[in-house]
Each structure stands twice: as C-alpha cells, then as structure tokens.
C-alpha cells in the first residue's frame, strides 16, 4: 500500500508541475500578444492567430489535458491548493518579464500561498473519494 502511495505521489508531482507551468506561461504569452482592446466578436477569433496568443492557447491546451489526467486520480480539493502555486509564479514572471513591481504586501501574500500549498501537499494523500466504477480503455 505504501508503494502504491509513493507511485501516486510521484505521478501527482510530475503532473502538478506540468499543470502549473503550462498555465503560467500560457497566461503570460496570451497577455503578451493581446491588443489593447477587443471590440467586435470577429476580433476575438482573429486574435487567436497572433503568434504569441496562438502559443498561449497551445500551452493552455496542454494545461487542460494534463489537468484532466491529474483529476482522473487526484481530488479537486487537493489539486486546487497544490496548483495555486501558479499565482506565485505569475507574480514572479510579471516582475522578471513584464517589469511589474512586487510590494511587501504582495510578497506576504505569496508567502501565505506557499505555506498553504506546503500544508496540503506535504501531509495528505491526493485521493480520498473513490470512483464508483471504472471505464475500460483507460489503461492496463
């Protein structure tokens, strides 16, 4: 049973890292390519073909798929706090790449988020609710 837990934990960490980084960089690239305003419905479509926006969308597709895989075994109430470390990385990326200011208040908030993530991810097993039935075709 402890071997099963160790296997799930490693797999969970790998997918959590992919989920977090695809989300942070997806958002960053979207913002980078976004014009100052989207006026007509057509502009919502044409903006998708802007290179930075397209790269952002591609990363958000990776985010969606990896998050779906992660949620196939891990609880939502586990995935939410663990992947919220992305809020920290968005702030850091904003400082480094977009030259935004990070105030003391903001650093305090970042510290609280990191503490919350450590509490949830360090202590608990990712899965508590068990599936009612499994569908064939998902794996061996």
């Amino acid at each position, binding site marked *: 049973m402890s071997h099963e837990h160790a296997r799930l934990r490693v797999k969970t960490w790998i997918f959590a890292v992919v989920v977090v980084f695809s989300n942070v960089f997806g*958002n*960053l690239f*979207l*913002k980078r390519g*976004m*014009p*100052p*305003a*989207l006026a007509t419905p057509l502009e*919502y479509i044409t*903006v998708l073909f802007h290179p930075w926006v397209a790269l952002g969308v591609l990363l*958000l597709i990776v985010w*969606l798929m990896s*998050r*779906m*895989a992660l*949620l*196939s*075994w891990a*609880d*939502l*109430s*586990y*995935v*939410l*706090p663990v992947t*919220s470390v992305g*809020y920290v990385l*968005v*702030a850091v990326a*904003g400082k480094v790449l*977009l030259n*935004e200011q990070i105030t003391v*208040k*903001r650093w*305090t*908030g*970042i*510290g*609280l*988020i*990191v*503490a*919350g*993530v450590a*509490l*949830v991810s360090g*202590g*608990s097993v990712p899965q*508590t*609710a068990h*599936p*009612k*039935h*499994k*569908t064939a*075709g*998902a*794996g*061996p």
Partner: protein
Amino acid sequence: MRWLLIGIIVAATTAGEVLQAAGMRRHGEIRDFRPGAIGRALAVLARNRFVIAAVAAMAVSFFAYLGLLAIADLSFAVPATAITYVLETVLAKYVLKEHVNWLRWAGASLVICGVALVSL
C-alpha cells in the same frame, strides 16, 4: 465591463472545473501514457457528458478571459478570478463528496488570504 467579465469567468470556470473533476473521477485513473492509449482515452472522454459540459463551460470562460486580458493587467486578471478557488473547494466537499480534512481547509484558508493580499 471588467467586473461583468470577471463574473462570467468565475461562474463558467467554477462550473467547468467541478464538472471536469466529476467527469474524470467517473472515468478513473489514467495509467497508460503511450500515444495510442491516450487517443483511446480521449475517444472515451469525448462521450463523457461531464467532460463535454466542462469543455463547453471552459470555452465560455476562455473567451471572457481573452476579453479581460485585453483591457486589464495580467497581475489583476489572474488573482481577481481566484474567487473560483473558494467556490470550488466548497463544491468539492458538497457536490463531489471529497473528504476535505482540516489540513486542506487550513491550506485553502492560507491560499485565500494570500491571493487576497496579492490582488488587493
């Protein structure tokens, strides 16, 4: 305009992510990551009503988010939509029937305080 967009994003994201979790939980753990197996899993998931509804809700959320990013800073847009975090943790307990123990509530509370500090 920006608060209307945030309202749409929060409602659609919360619905989408809870439906996504419900759909994936019904599907069961994905263990095989070879390309063929992933293709088969996607084919199964494409007929999963929860996953279909989740993708539709997240598409609404995505276009509202594009509109928000055009008029607002990234450092405003991302934390402002973090209220979904609170709603989803509550729904995880009452709709998905997860056992949200004191450690998860404590962690969730810390994250909420942190997000409030970052965004306000």
